[in-house]
C-alpha cells in the first residue's frame, strides 16, 4: 500500500535527535519504522509514524524542516530470496527504487520503498506478487 512517510532535516549535532523524539513522545506519536542517513554535517531522517498529520504539525511548530512523502509499503515473507523476487519484479517492469528500509518480525518482512511512481509500483506488486 501507499503510505505517508515523514522526512526530517537534522543537523548532525548532539541532542538534535533527542529533541525530535521528545516532541513525538509528548504528542503521543508512535514510530513504527525509521531510517537515518547522514553526512558529516547533516542527516535526513525518514520515518513512519502513527499519526503523520499530527507529527508534521508538531514538528513544524518546533521549527523543524519537515515534509510528508508518499512511499510504498509492502509485506514479503521473511525468507532468503524474497526481497530479490520483489525487486526483480519491479526492475523488470521499469520501476526504480530511490531508497528503502525495512524490518522483519514474526515470519514476515515489511519494506518501505521510495519510488517515483508509487501507484504504478503498487499495481505491479499486486498483479505479480
Amino acid at each position, binding site marked *: 500500500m501507499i503510505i505517508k512517510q515523514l*522526512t*526530517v*532535516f*537534522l*543537523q548532525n549535532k548532539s541532542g*538534535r535527535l533527542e529533541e525530535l523524539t521528545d516532541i513525538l513522545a509528548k504528542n503521543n506519536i508512535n514510530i513504527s519504522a525509521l531510517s537515518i*542517513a547522514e*553526512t558529516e*554535517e*547533516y542527516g*535526513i531522517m525518514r520515518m513512519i509514524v502513527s499519526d503523520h498529520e499530527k507529527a508534521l504539525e508538531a514538528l513544524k*511548530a518546533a*521549527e*523543524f*524542516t*519537515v*515534509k510528508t*512523502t508518499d512511499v510504498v509499503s509492502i509485506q514479503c515473507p521473511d525468507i532468503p530470496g524474497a526481497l530479490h523476487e520483489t525487486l526483480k519484479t519491479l526492475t523488470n517492469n521499469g520501476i526504480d527504487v*530511490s*531508497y528503502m528500509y525495512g524490518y522483519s518480525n514474526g515470519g514476515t518482512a515489511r519494506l518501505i520503498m521510495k519510488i517515483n511512481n508509487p501507484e504504478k509500483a503498487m499495481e505491479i506488486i499486486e498483479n505479480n506478487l
Partner: protein
Amino acid sequence: MQENDIWSECETYDREQFRKVQSERLVDTVKRVYEKVPHYKNKFDQHGVSVEDIKSVDDLSKLPFTEKKDFRDNYPFGLFAVPQKQIVRFHASSGTTGKPTVVGYTKNDMTMWSEMIARIVTMAGVTDEDVAQISFGYGLFTGAFGLHQGLEHIGAAVIPMSSGNTEKQIMIMKDFHTTALISTPSYALHMAEIAREMGVDPKKDLFLKWGLFGGEGSTEAMRREINGAWGLLATENYGMSELIGPGVSGECLALKGMHINEDHFIPEIINPDTGEVLPEGAVGELVITTISKEALPIIRYRTSDITSLNYDKCDCGRTTVRMAKISGRSNDMLILGGVNVFPAQIEEVLFNVDGIGPHYQIKVFKQGYLDRIEVDVELIDANYLDSFGKLENLNQTIKHKLRTVLGIDAKVNLMQPRTLQRFEGKAKRVIDMREDK
C-alpha cells in the same frame, strides 16, 4: 513612487544655497572648535591649518580628519565644545571593546536632531496619522530616542516599545494598529518569524505600511525579504552617534539613495587608504563634517562606511545629495586570501538563493596558513529533503555563487531552522577567528 510631503524647504535648496549655508556654518564651526576644544586646536596647529584658511566649503579638505580613536583618547567629554552646564542629554555607542564613545547634546542640538528626524520620517512616508512602534533598544544607544523625538515632532503616535520581548511586540502591533515599524532590519526579519509562529499573518492581521530601518546596513535583497514578509514599504536611514545618531540621511519613497541633510552635515568621499578626496560619483569612504552642532561639533569624521554620492535632483523633488546604500565598512572588510570581501556581498548572494532562510553566520579562520571561510545558513524548504542529491545541489549552488563573489571556496553548512543566533539590535554576522588578520 508615492507622493508625500517634504518637511523642510531646506531640502529643496539649489546648489548655490547649499554652498552658502555650508560655507557660513563651516567657518563658524571651525572657529568654535579651535577656540573651545584643545584637541582641535592642537590638531589644526600640527596640521599647519589656521582658522583664517577656512573661508568656504571649498577649503574643507585642508582640515585634518577626526577618527574613532579621537573619541577614545578624549574620553569622556574631551571633544565637547560647551560647558557641561549646557548639556541636556548624553548618549554613548555600544563599544564592544574598551570604553564607549560618549556624545552630548545641548537644547539646540536636541531641537536640530528632532528636525532632522522629522525630515527623514516624512520622506519615508510617515505622517501625523501614523502609529510608530520603536523597536530599537532604549538607553544609551541613539537610535530609539532619536527616532522617538522626531516622530513626536511630526505628530505621529509613538509606542516606545524598545527591543526584545518579541511576542509582546506583535501583540501591541496588532492591538494598537501600528502602521510604522522602526528597528534594525535583522530584528524586523526575526519579528516576522515570531509573528508567523504565533499564527499572526503580518500582511493580513497587522496594519503596517512603513518600515524605517537603520542601525546596521542592509541590502536590496534584504529589503525585498522584509517587504514580502510584512507587506510594508521598507526604507533605510543612516546615522551614527558620533555625528548625531540617526538623522544624517534617509531614503525617500523613490528608493534611490539616502538624502543627506546637507545644510547640517557636509559629506565627502575619500580614498580610505590615501585620504584623498574623490570626485562626484566615486565609491569610497564617507567623511562627514557637522556644521550646526553645539555640544559636539565634529570635523571630517571618518565613518568607515563605503558609499558614493549622487547630486542629481531626485524624483521626490528633494535636491539634497543622496548617498548610496552602504556597501561595506572599510574596517569590517574581510581580507580572505588577499581578496577584499564585504559581508554585505555575501548577504546579497545568500538572499538570492531559494530554500534557505534570511539568517546567516560567517566564520573565518586559518587552516595552516590559508584563510578559510564557512557560511552557516538555515534550510527552510523541506522539498530539498527528497534526496541527498537535492541537498547537495543546493549546497553546491550556494558555494558556486559565493565563489564568484569571494574568489575562494566557502564551506556551506546547512543548519536546522532557528539554530542561528537572532539579533534584537545590530546583527553580528561575522566571527573572525584568525589571530592575525
